[in-house]
């Protein structure tokens, strides 16, 4: 945590590092949005029990 060797991809520049991490977080947000928040009926029905069990707003 204190030295550069302990971080993932230590060789990249800080700007590139920021962009890549932000991109990863964005991808995760899209995935959660699709599984948990999509209004498409088929997606809702497929993940129905998951949505209820994750306490995502449902119906």
């Amino acid at each position, binding site marked *: 945590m204190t030295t550069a060797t302990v971080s993932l991809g230590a060789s990249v520049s800080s700007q590139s590092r920021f962009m890549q*991490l932000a991109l*990863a977080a964005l*991808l995760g947000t899209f995935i959660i949005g699709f599984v948990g928040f999509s209004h498409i009926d088929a997606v809702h*029905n497929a993940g129905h029990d*998951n949505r209820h069990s994750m*306490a995502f707003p449902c*119906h």
Partner: protein
Amino acid sequence: MNLFRNVVFIAAITGLVAGVVLACMQAYATVPLILKAEVYEQAEGGHSHDHAAAPADAAGGNAMSSAAPAASNTMSAATPAPAAAAAPAEDEGWAPADGFERFAFNVVSNVVTGIGFALILVAVSEFAGGIGNWRQGVFWGLAGFAVFTLAPGLGLPPELPAMPAADLTQRQIWWVATVIATAIGLGLIAFRKSLPLAILAVLLIVAPHIVGAPQPDSFETPIPEGLHHQFVVAVTLTNLVFWLVLGAVVGVVRGRFTGTATSLRDSFA
């Protein structure tokens, strides 16, 4: 894109593990309660929902898998024919058949959800130096639980089918806003050594609950309060374990990746 690739890889492994664990817990803890609630929902007329829960006769249940996609959107409550009672598909489209298919889709949903949350967790924690081992991961998991389960759950408790709720989009907006405010608040407390910022953090965490979550017009429901309470406890605890596993597995897998753990034993140090 080396870093991005590593983050995605770690998140994929972690999401797979945590998602399968969560699906197994749900199969025993939460899904049986959902099925019970759907019986009440059916008894009430089966409106506002999609699944043919626990059809009274086995024949109806077997017929459902083939009948559901083709089911017409008749909501004829006046003529409760067996077919209509077994498959109130309304106009809600395709749904997995009860039994194995439904379970399988739940596992897939959980794994995908796990990967999504893991991506967010790994990316955010890398900004703060990364999750070094499973113990740090457990604390990150606790934070994730507080942000994604506890905080939104205070205003919008886990709900069962057939429970009244306010407009879906409004609840989703409140949910997302609460998650963001709580995450920023916890981040300020954890990573900024400043009293004014800590006070701001508390305000951020409290604010969504002062605004208040969107509430339904009426709280009337056929669901017994005991069943709902059981469900709230089950959802909260399964999510707690899910987040602890998620954080811990990130710590272990990441340790293997960065080379700080030369043996698997080191990643558990």
